[in-house]
């Protein structure tokens, strides 16, 4: 198989409109000369046609996303906006809620670091490899993205469960008397989320590394730099925009994931997402649910915003 061709579109999905806009500037914007009459000849002839084309999509966007989300966040049924705000304040002071927020953010950070530490080397080796196996390995790294999260996470129940592979192995080797509690721990959540988001990290890093001219590596090496100096001095800095994107995607995914904390963390390791579900489906506490949703959304927005700031700063330097 030949090496996989350069992606058509800008590398990965960017989790923030500003970022997306920045990326669209690279590829999204068609470079075409602005002849005054040119648009007359294209398929969308007038501004009115363009607006008509937008309408159906806009309707779905408003009904299926924007209006309900805003309504839920600021005014859930029977609950005033003030109550939601008060609830958020309560969440930020209550030790139990703070522990949940802390766990969500903390595990998100750990997963982000682990995904970059494991994913970047994979991306680097694949992008620089001349082996014909590299495209197979790349496909193997992307494939899990198509696979259901339930299926992927379920595997850890078999691996980590009390009757699972690791427990049996440790007991069989005589290292422990009883299988240690691995499931329903923070370690289990980190493993599960790492498995889930590593492909994302690999793709983002891969497109970044692939854009770094391998000739630069060679030049550095030829001038006497060691492999590690080339790696840290050339490859990593030049692909850092991709690393920022990867980190943002992984963090945003980790702090909002539901399936993995639910299956591997259970009720003993509550995270914001499982707490949100519990408020909205078990206790029917709309104020609590909206407050949790607000915290989660703000968290993701802040991180995406920071990432886009970093990206913009990097771009202007």
């Amino acid at each position: 198989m030949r090496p996989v061709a350069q992606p058509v579109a800008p590398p990965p999905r960017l989790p923030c409109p500003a970022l997306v806009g920045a990326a669209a500037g690279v590829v999204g914007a068609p470079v075409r000369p602005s002849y005054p009459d040119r648009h007359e000849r294209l398929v969308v002839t007038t501004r009115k046609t363009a607006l008509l084309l937008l309408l159906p999509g806009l309707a779905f966007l408003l009904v299926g996303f924007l209006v309900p989300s805003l309504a839920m966040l600021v005014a859930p049924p029977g609950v005033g906006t003030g109550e939601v705000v008060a609830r958020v304040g309560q969440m930020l002071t209550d030790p139990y809620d703070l522990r949940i927020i802390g766990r969500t953010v903390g595990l998100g950070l750990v997963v982000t670091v682990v995904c970059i530490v494991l994913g970047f080397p994979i991306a680097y080796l694949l992008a620089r490899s001349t082996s014909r196996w590299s495209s197979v390995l790349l496909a193997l790294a992307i494939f899990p993205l198509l696979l259901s999260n339930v299926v992927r996470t379920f595997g850890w129940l078999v691996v980590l469960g009390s009757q699972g592979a690791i427990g049996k192995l440790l007991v069989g080797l005589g290292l422990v008397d009883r299988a240690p509690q691995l499931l329903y721990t923070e370690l289990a959540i980190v493993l599960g989320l790492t498995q889930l988001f590593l492909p994302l990290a690999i793709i983002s890093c891969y497109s970044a590394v692939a854009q770094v001219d391998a000739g630069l590596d060679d030049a550095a090496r030829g001038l006497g730099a060691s492999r590690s100096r080339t790696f840290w001095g050339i490859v990593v800095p030049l692909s850092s925009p991709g690393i920022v994107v990867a980190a943002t995607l992984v963090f945003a995914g980790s702090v909002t994931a539901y399936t993995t904390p639910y299956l591997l963390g259970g009720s003993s390791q509550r995270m914001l997402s499982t707490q949100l579900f519990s408020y909205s489906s078990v206790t029917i506490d709309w104020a609590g649910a909206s407050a949790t949703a607000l915290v989660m959304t703000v968290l993701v927005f802040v991180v995406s915003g920071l990432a886009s700031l970093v990206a913009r700063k990097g771009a202007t330097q």
Partner: protein
Amino acid sequence: MSQTDSQAPALPGGPDQTDGQPRALPGRPDQSSRPARPRRPARPARAPRTGKPVASTLAVAGYVVMIVPILFVVATAFTGGRTLTFPPQGLSLQWFEKAVAYEPFTGALVSSLQLAVLATLIALAVGVPVTLAIHRGRLPGRGLIEGMFLSPLIVPELVVGLALYQQLMIGFGLANSTTLLIGHTALMMPYAVRVTGASLALADPSLEEAARGLGAGPVRAFFTVTLPMLRPGIFSAALLSFVTSFNNVPLSLLLQSRDFRTLPVTMLDYVQQSYDPMVAAMATLILVATVVVAVVAERTVGFAQIFGGINK
């Protein structure tokens, strides 16, 4: 990770990247012994695996975390025993038979397929015109419009699910299947807009112009010239939407009813209730179907093209 790379010149902030054959940079002691030889062969001959033990070890660890749990699912699906233990006790297909005969699974599978197909078709039907308007329409605030249509990707799906449950199902009394369809369509639209948009950005406008100049109306020019150029993007968007909708948990989670349930959520509930290998069998069947989809995708458009555009 080892911190043993003493030879390599330290760069600020970086831990090591041991390369196995550390060279002292200034001295280069071996230079005199073999003078007029290039330090290493030309690039294509470089062996990619040698000399990068840290990177290779991390890479192997990454693949183990990604792939091995999936293999365990497959292994337990074929167990002859009654519980989720490893190693599996004996070999049998009993759990596959049970899974395909278990009505909640089969019913949910049909619902999930219907939902994914419909949501994908509607998302494309409304999303492709949006793409056209954004890229060809010369509208003011183009970036803003595009950002708005991509915004469902940033808000946590669980939050959207809660919003639709609370506002549409409870507030307006919509059926959960309708709510699911609206929600999935809204969530899949960014894929249609972004991925077909990437195709459209690459499509040469002068072809359209030529068609129009030769007398084709805008509609005819679209269907005979623009649409064929968008085909790879539309295919990628369709595949991504279908797979994302079919696998979705967070958005669908709260939008379930007894009559219309989606498969991933049904499986999730089942795992919580009973600890038997039937879910492993169902998961294996999904895995096989996903491999088929992946092979088709790789053969037709190519993975990198599909996931280069957008990913979740």
